[in-house]
């Protein structure tokens, strides 16, 4: 085909070209394609698999167990305790950081590369792009969490062993039940992970700055943990996004209590909805003058 034929494309005399309108599906494919092309995303997912193995190996080779940490006392000779010890450590900043590196970047990187004008002059609306970025970020957070959990639990059980676990009330939990509870405990992290993802998305939209988008949620997470550790703030605790990180404790007590888990659904959903709504409004109203 000659160059001039290329130029004509299609007849130009008709009314406005009505093309197949791209939906959320096309935008999702585009956003996930971009993520998969980024080295940092591959590195994060690889790290989520490899780092827990290294951590378990190193911890296991320590002469003394970390006695004053939850499940630390039994971690050197019980794989379930090891997996829960790593969980207790991960919630301090690893989980918020893991999701922020993608979610805190996904809007601000369009500012960094000056590409808002590139994508917003096609046939996809701001709202569609917003939801595509949100869905892809949440999906990444859940995949990363699942890899981290699977790697930690597998490494702990293979390296440390599958002995019956001593629960938080001193009860003995046989291996099969312990595995279920450990997996369930890791699974409860999905709720605050989604909350932190939405917080990072908000900072990414609002700050237009990749560094702020990534660092701010992590710092806020650390501050909320500090506040949560203070005495006399019981009324504040249900509102902290870090409180759901501890909801799993109830699963390992005897009798089991699930109240904190229900609170955790409300807290995480509340943060997610508020952050997403704010981010959506900011993006919708914003003038794209840069780039």
């Amino acid at each position, binding site marked *: 085909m000659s160059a001039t034929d290329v130029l004509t494309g299609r007849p130009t005399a008709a009314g406005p070209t009505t093309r*197949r*309108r791209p939906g959320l599906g096309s*935008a999702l*494919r585009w956003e996930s394609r971009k993520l998969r*092309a980024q080295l940092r995303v591959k590195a994060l997912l690889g790290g989520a698999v490899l780092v827990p193995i290294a951590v378990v190996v190193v911890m296991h080779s320590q002469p003394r167990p970390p006695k004053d940490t939850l499940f630390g006392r039994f971690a050197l000779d019980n794989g379930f305790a090891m997996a829960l010890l790593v969980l207790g450590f991960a919630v301090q900043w690893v989980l918020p950081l893991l999701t922020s590196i993608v979610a805190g970047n996904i809007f601000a990187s369009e500012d960094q590369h000056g590409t808002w004008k590139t994508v917003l*002059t096609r*046939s*996809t609306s701001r709202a569609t792009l917003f939801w595509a970025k949100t869905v892809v970020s949440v999906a990444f957070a859940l995949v990363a969490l699942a890899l981290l959990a699977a790697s930690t639990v597998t490494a702990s059980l293979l390296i440390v062993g599958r002995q019956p676990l001593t629960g938080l009330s001193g009860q003995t939990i046989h291996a099969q039940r312990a595995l279920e509870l450990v997996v369930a405990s890791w699974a409860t992290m999905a709720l605050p992970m989604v909350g932190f993802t939405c917080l990072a998305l908000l900072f990414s939209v609002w700050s237009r700055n990749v560094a702020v988008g990534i660092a701010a949620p992590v710092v806020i997470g650390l501050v909320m943990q500090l506040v949560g550790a203070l005495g006399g703030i019981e009324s504040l605790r249900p509102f902290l996004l870090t409180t759901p990180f501890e909801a799993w404790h109830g699963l390992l007590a005897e009798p089991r209590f699930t109240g904190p888990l229900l609170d955790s659904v409300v807290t995480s959903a509340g943060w997610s909805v508020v952050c997403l709504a704010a981010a959506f409004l900011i993006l919708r109203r914003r003038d794209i*003058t840069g780039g």
Partner: protein
Amino acid sequence: MDSELAVDAVGVTKTFGSLCAVDDVTVKVEAGEVYGVLGPNGAGKTTFLRMLFGLVRPDSGTIRIFDRSWAADGVATLDGVAGFIESPAFYPYLTGRQNLEGLGLLDGGVRRDRVDEILELVDLTDRAGDAVGGYSYGMRQRLGVAASLIREPRLLVLDEPANGLDPAGIRDMRALVRRLAARGLTVLLSSHHMDEVEEICDNVTIMRQGGVAFHGAIAELRAMAPDPGYALSTTADDRALEIAAATPGIAAVHGPGTGLVVTGPAHEVSSYVSALVRAEVRLLAFTPTRTPLEQLFFMLTDTDPQEAEAA
């Protein structure tokens, strides 16, 4: 009648803080024409084009593109519209082809062979597999044209498309615009070069500090243009000034450096030069200062030609 218009922008205004970047601008672009928005840096051209694309929301005024508006039709307003604002930007970690295919997804899908054709057209076939981060400025500009053309637009909006290109690149860009226009595409482009607009546009809006200083046909503008000016250097400038004073239709003043600047209709200027020769004043240099349209542009936009040339 209204449906004939590719762009129908009426009374568009946008302020940033206390600065009125676009002030009550009305632009009507007929389908099929090449329209220029001309103005010095900071005149508000880019802000105006951003409002067409819905990137910036106007404070007041209405914008219709092929009879659609952002308020009523949302992103469907951009059906049949493509182009770029300032220099085109892409994802540096994706290849040229991946960028085009991805943007094609946001258009509702693009055939692979169509991407090949367009890459061939902008002469990027050989580099299509390389990450855009390694592209030169000119290559990115060509990829910007490619990204616009895969939308198969009826209206192409280009913001200072020649900016930053070398003379060969500028020539190619102008030739491409003319070729596209010949195929029936409507083109709206901005520029701060009168010669560019004069060369390729049918109608023009000249902007100045956010407002409209002129709008109409290039032919109208030509009729308004002042007499051409010439920089003159002679062996006896004072004598040359005296002769100028005695020649009807000619005005001569001392130039900014050495020498004189002479203005007048071409015919009188040539008689003046003969008079100098007869008076044995010898010419050392005789060059046109700038084209009359450029001169008019500087007058309309209140810019200092020296400053503009330095920029």
